[in-house]
């Protein structure tokens, strides 16, 4: 309270430089179809250039983009069998990071190993496991399957990619930012809850329709339910349902990113929509596109803010704000060695705003009880 009354004191913004270490965890690089053409692809991620290529055995591999021989750019090489061949001297690198063959040499030198990322293909997406300590991914942090992707009852992915020139902590902060849903997404949250536990950070939200938006989708819609969880540092699955008088429209929205370097990241989002009697195939696809455009608009407004805002480690919060500090404590677990993960980073934390419980009635009960207690104490 003393700070509030001392009007001469200025609140300073504090911010350490963005970390140069990249988060431990599964990162989605995009849809697998973008990488499965038998050609090498360059992906700038984790402060490096990676080469992504599908070998003849069908596996999609991820290696450091530069040949350990003389530094040739493997992303400009050629896939030969199960290996990527360097365009400089044709050295052949396997998906396991080992040099398999030097066509003009009798023997491959010792230590002919390059950096590789463990890959996983799931539900139409390509994931890489990043770990500065070089450990394999524990099975419990695998990204959950998304029911619907492989089903004919749902549309295919409608997918967007864009580059954002700021540190990726800014987008993760959105998890706790309730107020921006009203201003940016035109929704009216009635129940908002953040849950951090282990490597998962969840945002649960129910929103009412917006009668003030006139004769629009927002006005006809009764409410939305959204359960959005980050599974690890970068991949969020949002089960998003629109409730109408006659039917529920079910959608899944992916919001994911991978760091390019300390000050930029690739933002990707994808949408699938469940087809139904009320939402036959063509209409479901249109819904996915419309929702995608809507999300795009929201992110573009976020990006406009991020471009100019200051990085801030000590945000000054009011009671109505979300749990920014607790979210960042959770996020920190991905930037330290596994042995340095402390209980406060992974212990369950909940922050809830429920506007549906009637305050007046409730406060009457409290006052009556307190009055009863003080009478009892007086006796």
């Amino acid at each position, binding site marked *: *309270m003393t*700070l509030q009354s001392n009007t001469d004191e200025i609140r300073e913004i*504090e911010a*350490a430089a963005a970390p140069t270490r990249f988060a431990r965890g599964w990162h989605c690089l995009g849809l697998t179809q973008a990488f499965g053409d038998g050609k090498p692809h360059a992906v700038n991620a984790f402060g490096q250039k990676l080469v992504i290529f599908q070998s003849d055995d069908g596996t999609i591999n991820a290696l450091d983009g530069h040949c350990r021989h003389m530094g040739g750019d493997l992303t400009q090489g050629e896939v030969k069998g199960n290996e990527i061949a360097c365009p400089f001297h044709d050295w052949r690198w396997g998906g396991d990071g080992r040099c398999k063959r030097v066509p003009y040499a009798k023997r491959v030198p010792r230590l002919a190993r390059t950096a590789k990322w463990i890959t996983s293909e799931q539900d139409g997406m390509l994931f890489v496991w990043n770990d500065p300590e070089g450990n394999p991914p524990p099975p419990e942090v695998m990204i*959950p399957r998304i*029911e619907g992707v492989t089903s004919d009852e749902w549309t295919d992915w409608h997918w967007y990619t864009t580059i954002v020139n700021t540190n990726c902590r800014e987008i993760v902060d959105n998890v706790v930012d309730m107020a921006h849903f009203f201003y940016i997404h035109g929704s009216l949250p009635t129940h908002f*809850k953040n*849950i951090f*536990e282990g490597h*998962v950070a*969840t945002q*649960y939200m129910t929103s009412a329709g917006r009668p003030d938006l006139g004769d629009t989708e927002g006005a006809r819609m009764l409410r939305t339910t959204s*359960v959005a*969880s980050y599974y690890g540092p970068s991949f969020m*699955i949002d*089960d998003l349902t629109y409730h109408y008088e006659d039917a529920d429209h079910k959608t899944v929205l992916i919001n994911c990113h991978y760091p390019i370097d300390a000050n930029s990241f690739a933002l990707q989002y994808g949408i699938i929509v469940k087809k139904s009697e009320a939402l036959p195939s063509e209409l479901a696809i249109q819904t996915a596109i419309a929702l995608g455009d809507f999300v795009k608009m929201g992110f573009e407004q976020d990006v406009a803010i991020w471009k100019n805002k200051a990085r801030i*480690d*000590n945000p*000054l*919060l*009011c*009671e*109505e704000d979300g*749990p*920014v*500090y*607790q979210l*960042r404590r959770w996020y*920190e677990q991905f930037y330290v060695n596994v042995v340095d993960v402390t*209980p406060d980073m992974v*212990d*369950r*934390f*909940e*922050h*809830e*705003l*429920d*506007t549906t*419980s009637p*305050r007046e009635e*409730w*406060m009457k*009960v*409290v006052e009556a*009880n*307190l009055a009863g*207690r003080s009478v009892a104490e007086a006796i």
Partner: protein
Amino acid sequence: MTAQIDNRLSDAPMMPLNCRRCSAQVLVRKGSWNQTSVQWTAGALAACLQRRDPDNSVAYSGQGVFLGCSALTDSIVGAVGDGDLPVVDEIRSTTT
């Protein structure tokens, strides 16, 4: 990163509270009549009966996220009702 402090918690910290069903002790803070924060420990989570019941479809989301324990929510409401847990906004509005 140097440890940063949530100014709200320096003004009014979280307080211990025992669930009236399973007795698990958590830290709770009610910022306002409709805002509640709960800090669990691994021990408290292990003790929670609803957390241990994965078939409890009310408490779990479709993706298997445990959304919350209703017995703990009732305990918090009860503690406020009994005057054992202050509501930060209500204290401010009466003292300022």
